[in-house]
């Protein structure tokens, strides 16, 4: 098994951990209302957290995977998750009414930026793994 940890492996893990740990603690949605109930954005936070945990598990699997083909497959599986997670705040679940509320000012941009960065890194990883796979194939042929 040709196991090699690349920068993209580490970046994918790092970004998914930042999203999973950041959503409940650092860039969470608005707090509870005075009557103790929550607004829509709280549901969005829960969904993003769930998806971020799934992405984190997948990214660790990506880190542990040996062959370039396996890594490519895992990266391809991550792409729809990243796109969907980026769409959750506002497009899938409507956020609160005012632009200066926490869900709009912090959670939404943080989620979108991390997902876009993950998407860029994942696509770079697919390109890199394809190259790596080709080199390995050439070596095997020799």
């Amino acid at each position, binding site marked *: 098994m040709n196991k090699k940890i690349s920068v993209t492996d580490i970046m994918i893990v790092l970004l998914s951990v930042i999203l999973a740990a950041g959503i409940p603690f650092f860039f969470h949605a*608005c707090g509870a209302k005075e009557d103790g109930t929550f*607004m829509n954005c709280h549901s969005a936070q829960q969904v993003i957290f769930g998806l971020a945990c799934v992405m984190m598990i997948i990214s660790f699997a990506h880190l542990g995977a040996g062959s370039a083909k396996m890594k490519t497959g895992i990266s391809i599986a991550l792409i729809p998750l990243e796109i969907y997670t980026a769409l959750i705040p506002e497009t899938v679940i409507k956020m*609160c*009414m*005012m*632009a*200066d*509320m926490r869900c709009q*000012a*912090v959670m939404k941009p943080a989620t979108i930026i991390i997902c876009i960065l993950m998407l860029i890194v994942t696509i770079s990883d697919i390109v890199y793994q394809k190259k790596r796979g080709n080199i390995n194939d050439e070596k095997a042929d020799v």
Partner: protein
Amino acid sequence: MTKRLMFKNIVKRSGRSLALMILSAFLSFSVFGGYIAITSMQNGLNSLESRLGADIIAVPDKAAHDIEAILIQGTPGYFYMDKSNMEKIKQIEGVEAVSPQYFLASLSAGCCSVPVQVIGFEPETDFSIQPWIKESYGANLGTDELLAGANINTDVGENLKFYNHICKVVGKLEKTGTELDNAVYTNGSTVKALMSAAKETGVGVLEKNDPEKLISSVLIKVKDGYDIDSISDNINIHIRHVTAVRTQNMIEGLSQSLMGISGMTKVLMAAVWILSLVIMAIAFSMIINERKREFAVLRVIGASRRTLAVTVLSEAAVIGLAGGLTGVIAGFLILFPFEGVLTDKFGMPYLAPNISNIISAALIAVISSVIAGSLTSAFSAARISRIDTGLILREGN
């Protein structure tokens, strides 16, 4: 050869290249971020000044702070005075035009738990809000129709409920970068209907009064040639239970804050630049010392002095370019998506500059980072072009 050698050096010594790139990124980020932040605050302040529109705002006694809280700090609120005060103000010499405004703060609207400021105006007399509204909404507002400020997350055609009274959003206003973006705007008849609805739900101040006879403030335009301060004093002396506030005075505090923030940002930028330039110059000097033998060997195999100097300079320029781009990208990722957080932290109106200014700032930041990289390595490049090949190679033995 120079190109290949330069790229190989950068890639092979990735740790060192990364450290220098991070320093360059700091340089370009400070230029780009500093410019965007200061310009945005200046734009916000200009926008606030033009949106206030009037020379003087007359409000009920003890509401001078409340009007600032509503218009400048964005704290929703309401206060009322008798409509007859507007007629009295109109009679004062030097007053060119007057227009009433009505303020009402909702308890909640839709899903949102925060109160929304409702601002009502009389289309027949208004000279403050309508010029701004016309930029994004051409028609006149009908009954139970309202326009949402840019920060209100609602779409045209949606209904908003205030005090169990449903109003239709017929347009969204252009962003002003001020707290006025957090309000909804409607005409006098709709706001009076909302005030009546609020009265029914038991809003204290409205309980004993007829909404038809109340206004919140009077916007005053002063005739040319008259002293605004004198007219403001006249209103304060002659009209009881009314306080006249000069809009210019309301903005003055913000102008001083802007000057303070702007000065602090410039000092920080200068500190970042001086530190980074010194560190980069030392780093390049150390790198050249470390690579003396490599350059001597290159000289022996035929590389000219100029080639060596160009190699060093272009390495620094490429690192500066990569760092500059990184700094600008980081600036884009922080300054624009998190605009709401920055506005909150600075406590100032904040309106991002237009796209051409943003692109120019990004280009200047990247170019200055490349120039800084090249300049800090220039001394080392000049030194390396004068190396005594024989002496250096002998030193190694």
